[in-house]
């Protein structure tokens, strides 16, 4: 650790000189020192082509919008934001290593990598280095059970992913009486499934083949493209709905292989993370039709903020910038933009980019944004934010839950008898 205090001191002087130089050279005295947001993001590996890309685009879009609006305002000055990113090759240990190297460069304000495993690896590093991280795409509640003080997640935790699907199904007509849950063996998917089973039982549904099957016969490995063993375990039980608590690869495999193996739920399929991503529709084509998915964000939300405007304006500006169809938008980008916005709002509130002050400001943050309400509990989770559900109809995401945000009814049963 030799040299750290010296390096920090020197960095402080450089910042102060930079601020002074900017202050004297500008006639309006409104341009302050720059602020760096640093993020390890997957550009290659398992998440490189889809989820990592969406996250990166969300961060870039946020920083671009922030700077276009004059940067972060505090102390009577506006501070432009620079986004620094590095590819973590979808390897958690590399994410953690990158964040350590950011610390060498005194990049203290961190935006999370994509996914729970990488965020889990980064959180203790952030804690030790006195950095502060806003988590955009790591929903596993386990991240928040270790007493870390410097990690805050804008997204709803893993516990709500399957419960939201159950609540959506319970409100449909006909409501399913039996559901089967296929769950990947990662912490996020297992935890989501566990809470989903309780919710299904509370809503009077029977979980087949058994309530604990998600831990045994219908459990599949994360990131695999063969889930046939789980489908075979389900086959004889004829569930009304098959729910997949997993990521993109497993969900795509489940729906493809279900038709190959002749496993046909009575009403339809639902899945947690995969359906509200453009890659799901492009991978499955017409087989994606009617699949229900829980999502962190929908454009029908009524809340807004001064940075992105309304949720609909965010969607329109974001999809125009990156060439997405407004009918197939990656919600992970909204998560990422919201995390970046929360960090900016905390800096503004703190009146400083000092990580300790930003951490305190984040802990006390309570704001409405295009993404919904952002407020953190004592563990750093945004428990105030609900989740929503969409259904894929004619290759477009249609919001079907909750009913007050839904303008188009669900196509249900999604599978013709």
């Amino acid at each position, binding site marked *: 650790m030799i040299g750290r205090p010296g390096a920090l001191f020197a960095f402080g002087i450089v910042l102060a000189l930079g601020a002074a130089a900017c202050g004297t050279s500008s006639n309006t005295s409104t341009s302050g020192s720059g602020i760096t947001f640093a993020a390890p993001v997957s550009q290659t590996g398992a998440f490189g082509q889809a989820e990592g890309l969406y996250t990166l685009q969300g961060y870039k879009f946020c920083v671009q919008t922030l700077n276009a609006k004059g940067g972060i305002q505090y102390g009577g000055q506006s501070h432009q934001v620079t986004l620094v990113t590095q590819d973590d090759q979808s390897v958690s*240990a590399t994410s953690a290593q990158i964040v350590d*190297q950011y610390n060498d460069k005194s990049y203290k304000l961190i935006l999370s990598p994509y996914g729970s495993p990488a965020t889990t690896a980064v959180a203790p590093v952030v804690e030790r280095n006195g950095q502060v991280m806003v988590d955009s795409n790591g929903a596993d509640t386990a991240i928040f059970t270790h007493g870390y003080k410097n990690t805050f997640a804008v997204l709803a935790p893993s516990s709500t992913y399957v419960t939201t699907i159950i609540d959506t199904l319970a409100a449909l007509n006909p409501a399913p009486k039996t559901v089967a849950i296929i769950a990947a063996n990662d912490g996020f998917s297992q935890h989501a499934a566990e809470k989903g089973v309780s919710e299904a039982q509370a809503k009077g549904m029977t979980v087949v083949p058994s309530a604990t099957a998600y831990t045994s016969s219908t459990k599949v*490995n994360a990131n695999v493209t063969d889930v046939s063993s789980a489908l075979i375990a389900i086959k004889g039980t004829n569930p009304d709905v098959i729910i997949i608590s997993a990521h993109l690869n497993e969900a795509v495999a489940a729906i493809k292989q279900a038709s190959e193996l002749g496993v046909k739920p009575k009403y339809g399929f639902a899945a947690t993370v995969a359906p509200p991503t453009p890659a799901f529709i492009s991978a499955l084509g017409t087989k994606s039709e009617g699949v229900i998915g829980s999502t962190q964000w929908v454009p029908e939300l009524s809340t807004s903020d001064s940075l992105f405007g309304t949720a609909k304006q965010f969607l329109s500006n974001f999809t125009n910038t990156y060439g997405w169809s407004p009918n197939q938008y990656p919600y992970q980008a909204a998560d990422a933009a919201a995390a970046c916005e929360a960090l900016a709002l905390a800096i503004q509130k703190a009146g400083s980019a000092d990580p300790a002050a930003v951490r305190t400001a984040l802990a006390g943050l309570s704001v409405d944004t295009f993404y919904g309400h952002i407020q953190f509990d004592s563990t750093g989770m945004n428990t105030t934010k609900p989740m929503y559900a969409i259904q894929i109809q004619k290759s477009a995401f249609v919001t079907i839950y909750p009913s007050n945000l839904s303008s188009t009814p669900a196509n249900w049963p999604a599978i013709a008898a």
Partner: protein
Amino acid sequence: MSSRGPQSVSSSTDALAAILQGRQRTGREVVVDWVRSRTLANSWPALAGVAVIALLLGLQQLIEPGTMRLLSAVFMFVALAQAWNIIGGYTGYASFGQVVFFGLGAYVTAVLMNNYHVSFWVAMPAAILGGVLFAVLIGVPLLRLRGHYFAIATLGAAEGAREVINNMTPVTGGGLGITIPTFGDQAPTAYFGKPGFYVAFLVLAAASVAISTLLARSRFGYAMVAVHEDEAAASAVGINTTVVKVVAFGVSGAIVACAGAFYAFQQIEFYPTDVFDPSFTVLMVIMVVIGGSGSVVGPLVGAVGLELLSQFLRVNLGTYNQLIFGAIIVVVVVFFPQGVVNFFRDAWMARRFSLLDNIRRYRL
């Protein structure tokens, strides 16, 4: 430094006589012979090694903690490559499942520290012991296979072990991952921090190079090479090939398990897919093949070169970094099929530096 090099033994005729007669030397004889046989010519690798370690410890005072972490990874791969070289290079049994020891080492450490609050200094030796026992357990049946069959069997063993760990959720956390407590009173051993892990991985790398060097120059080392060259002939001259293979596999497994133990403690939280990742094995193999198998310097050069190159490309090339990394590996393997170090050693001795000649020699 290479496996050929009987000079250290032949310089003591008594020792050679003892070996030729098959007579066991006394401990005193061994020490005296060893001291007598020391010359600058045969001591320089050890002296150079000490100098490099001193240099790296000095360098630590100049670099930032994040860079220490990067170099820790380089040191770890030096140890892993040396370990793979013992079984894959010297003994000629290309294991494609060496990551199994890494994963086991990591999980033995994490389970003991997390579930039983055992000190790291107890958990780490337990991990090494676990690695050795597992090597013997799977080595005895699997080392009867050769070539592709052995490679596939070890690959299967690693995949199978990962699934077992994955499904032992009550003990290992399974797919939910496992956390080594490192904060506050919960920590059975105080976290090393980046400077601590830098030293730990440096010691591990140095130890693995030392073990590899000593093995290569020992009677056992010659036995390993004999098994590699012609197992039937080795057996015919009285070498117990089963013992040689299993011991080589065990030593390799012990080093890899030890690396897994340190890695687990460094990462704090991890999943089975992280520590049983087959890309660890692939990297070990590539580092040894590119550096030059069957020597001590080859894997060292391969590990340092490839890990630094990979990090450089990742930081500077964005999306294309893995593509370019792969392309470089292909080009190097085409031009240096025997490994970079072996090429330069042979080229220096034969005074033939033409790469085209080299390709012809090995390919045509």
